[in-house]
């Protein structure tokens, strides 16, 4: 974390610590509420802001945590255990509600989570014998040590918990988990190609978010002294979404800002409660239309022009100073990076058939995109797949990387049948891929994009160690940063390591995509139209790069490309597809002079 962020947080902390000693009881109450709200908002930000899963049920999870914690305390469990207990209960409900999320997205997910919130609300209202219904449930403050029941000290308890949870959230978000969440939000296909198991990560995000909500609920009950179903309505769930949007989705700090806005609006508008809601709703709408990135997002984007001294609140920027980059370089190994990364157990023979596609057929509805296509790629060669538009080239690549389900045929790689694997398991077998549409992940820097490539090839520490900020986790991140920089150097884009990938010119974005595919440590690199959209100079650079990757590192390359000069210039062998069938195979000269190929590309004249 850089100096400016550290300073900002320190100031915030001092202000927060000063509250109980300088402010009156009401101030303490407001501040306590704000912190509790921000804990729940923090969790929701991880789920909706980072992982992109729209959840309209946060109030429901808070309710689960609040009531379960209250029940536990009534049963004699001390506060210090019942609050985490509430968190666990909420986490479990998050696990259950997360199940629909695995299959649905967007508005369907919004509806499912909204329904969950509504069901919880109805249960709270109607199950009077247990929840006290609309009359409410009385909740007491912690009794040991007894002074914690005072407003002042309870506030400090809440603050303490919030700080811990914030640090944990930050650790999670700044790790491969956070990157995985962002990746799955921006592009599920790319995520699977990078080996991210969508099911597992979506579930983790749901559990984290609901756990945080549960803790917030557990703290909320004693703060107010009682629980009332009215505080956990659908509107409240909607308010949480509004909080993170206003503060800034996917920024963590935004949840604090949003919570502050939400809690302080009633203060500014001491008139009827309804005006406050209306005002909040209108503010939210304005933010949606005018400032969709939220307060923190806006500040981040315009930091250089606004205030020189509020720098990026540096959530996911591992490389902040030039110095950091050079430090990383000191750990460079002298051996070429790819052989340093390669696993010795994978045999690298020459002349073996690495990839075998046999009788592959793909059908879309009534259309045969591929019919009975067979070819093989030898270890260490550059093999190109070409053909006119609609010939089936991309379908073939998608079948190999398991994004499409073929209707017939087999694909074997290194002796193993690929068709029994899922898309997110392919990369672990040693197949890396670039995408025609680049597939750059927005919101991440070029370096971070490449680091996503290490998700599967360098797993590192587990979740708990990451969340708690263990040394091993930090070392893993440092490793990934250094080696991602190496990848960027390979493709000559290292000067843009700290820039947002989407700000880069198109040609360089494609190179970042290539670096990311290399980070997957592939044996077979699949390049999907790498030259499209590049300038002639960039194409030249690309071709020499591909050649050297192949010759020097022994990488096998499967290339799909329209630019014939590129194809003819670097391929060892070429297969030509037309109308879903293979019509020719051979070396470049053979292909160029093959009359079937000429006909496929240039068409044919009608003979009367």
């Amino acid at each position, binding site marked *: 974390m850089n100096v400016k962020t550290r300073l900002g947080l320190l100031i915030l902390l001092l202000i927060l610590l000063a509250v109980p000693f300088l402010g009156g009881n009401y101030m303490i109450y407001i501040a306590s509420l704000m912190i509790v709200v921000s804990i729940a908002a923090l969790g929701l930000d991880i789920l909706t802001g980072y992982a992109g899963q729209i959840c309209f049920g946060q109030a429901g999870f808070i309710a689960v945590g609040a009531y379960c914690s209250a029940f536990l305390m009534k049963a004699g469990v001390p506060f210090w255990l019942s609050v985490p207990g509430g968190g666990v209960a909420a986490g479990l409900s998050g696990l259950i509600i997360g199940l629909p999320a695995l299959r649905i997205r967007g508005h369907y997910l919004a509806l499912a989570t909204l329904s969950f919130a509504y069901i919880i609300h109805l249960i709270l209202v109607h199950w009077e014998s247990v929840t006290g219904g609309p009359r409410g449930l009385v909740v007491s403050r912690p009794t040991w040590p007894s002074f914690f029941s005072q407003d002042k000290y309870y506030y400090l308890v809440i603050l303490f918990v919030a700080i811990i949870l914030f640090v944990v959230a930050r650790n999670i978000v700044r790790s491969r988990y956070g990157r995985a969440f962002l990746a799955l939000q921006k592009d599920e296909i790319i995520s699977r190609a990078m080996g991210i198991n969508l099911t597992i990560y979506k579930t983790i995000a749901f559990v984290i978010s609901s756990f945080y909500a549960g803790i917030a609920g557990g703290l909320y009950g004693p703060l107010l002294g009682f629980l009332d179903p009215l505080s956990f309505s659908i509107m409240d769930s909607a308010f949480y979404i509004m909080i993170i949007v206003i503060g800034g989705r996917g920024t963590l700090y935004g949840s604090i800002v949003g919570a502050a806005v939400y809690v302080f609006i009633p203060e500014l508008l001491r008139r009827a409660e309804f005006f406050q809601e209306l005002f909040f709703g209108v503010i939210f709408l304005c933010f949606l239309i005018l400032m969709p990135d939220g307060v923190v997002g806006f500040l981040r984007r315009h930091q250089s022009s606004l205030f020189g001294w509020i720098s990026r609140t540096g959530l996911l920027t591992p490389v902040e100073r030039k110095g950091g980059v050079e430090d990383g370089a000191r750990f460079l190994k002298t051996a070429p990076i790819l052989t340093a990364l390669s696993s010795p157990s994978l045999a690298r023979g020459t002349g073996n058939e690495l990839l075998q596609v046999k009788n592959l057929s793909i059908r879309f509805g009534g259309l045969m995109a591929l019919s009975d296509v067979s070819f093989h790629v030898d270890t260490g060669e550059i093999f190109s797949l070409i053909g*006119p*538009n*609609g010939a089936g080239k991309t379908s073939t690549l998608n079948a190999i990387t398991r994004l499409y389900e073929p209707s017939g045929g087999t694909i074997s790689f290194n002796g193993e049948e690929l068709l029994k694997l899922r898309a997110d398991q392919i990369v672990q077998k040693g197949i890396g891929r670039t995408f025609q549409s680049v597939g750059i992940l927005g919101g991440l820097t070029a370096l971070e994009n490449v680091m996503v490539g290490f998700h599967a090839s360098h797993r590192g520490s587990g979740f708990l160690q990451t969340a708690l900020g263990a040394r091993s986790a930090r070392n893993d991140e440092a490793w990934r940063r250094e080696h991602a920089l190496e990848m960027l150097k390979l493709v000559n884009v290292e000067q843009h390591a700290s820039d947002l990938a989407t700000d880069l*010119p*198109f040609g360089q*974005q494609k190179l970042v995509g290539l670096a990311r595919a290399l980070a997957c440590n592939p044996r077979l690199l699949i390049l999907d*139209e790498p030259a*499209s*959209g590049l300038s002639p100079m960039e194409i030249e650079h690309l*071709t*020499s790069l591909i*050649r*050297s990757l192949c010759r020097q590192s022994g990488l096998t390359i499967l290339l799909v490309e*329209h*630019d*014939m*000069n590129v*194809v*003819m*210039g*670097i*391929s060892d062998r070429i297969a030509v597809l037309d109308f879903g069938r293979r019509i020719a195979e051979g070396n*470049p*000269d053979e292909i*160029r002079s093959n009359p079937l*190929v*000429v006909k496929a*590309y*240039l*068409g*044919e*004249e*009608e003979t009367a």
Partner: protein
Amino acid sequence: MLTIEDMDVFYGKVKALHGISFHVPPKGITALLGANGAGKTTTLRTICGILKPAGGTIIFEDQRIDGMGTEAIVRRGISIVPEGRRLFPQMTVLENLELGSFTRKDKVGVERDLKQIFDYFPRLRERKSQLAVSLSGGEQQMLAIGRALMVRPKLLLLDEPSMGLAPLAIKEIYQIVEALNREGMAILLVEQNAKKALQVAHEACVLETGKITMKGDPKSLLASKQFYEAYLGKGSNKDEAS
């Protein structure tokens, strides 16, 4: 009739067209050729307003249409038969054709044109009440052309009409194209099947990676080596040091 001057078009961040210029005369068939990814479809989509040029002008009948919305451009008299046909799948042949006449107010003219299209494409008349999705590839292409004609355009844009069609169907389609042109319609034809297009076109332009590299009449293009290289690349120089 249609003049494009110095047009730049971006597709997202990529510059897809670099300062292209060409002209479609009022009574001819002009072919726009080039390898895949060269920018042919991008050009057509810019002409009909789906994409907006970043620079340059498009002038249709002495009026600038670059930057106008698609609906407005269509109402000015440009109609497109899109790549992949883009029929309304759950609507009948007749309904698809009727939608083509959406902008028209002259009921009599519409009736007359409908009859004429069925004369051009008797198979469509047979299948009047069938859903568009149940037609064969060739019939779908005919329907797509018929629908575009119902707009009563002054300029017809054809985007890869032969794609995915059997040779016999391609032959029929091109006969119609020639017949339409004989009746006075200006046509801008984008094709992958270069040789077929050159058989009917009066003028052709070749696009290579977003630039127009060749212009001329079909005969001279077919005879030039550069034309082949545009599609199949230059000779291999694999053994050059990298």
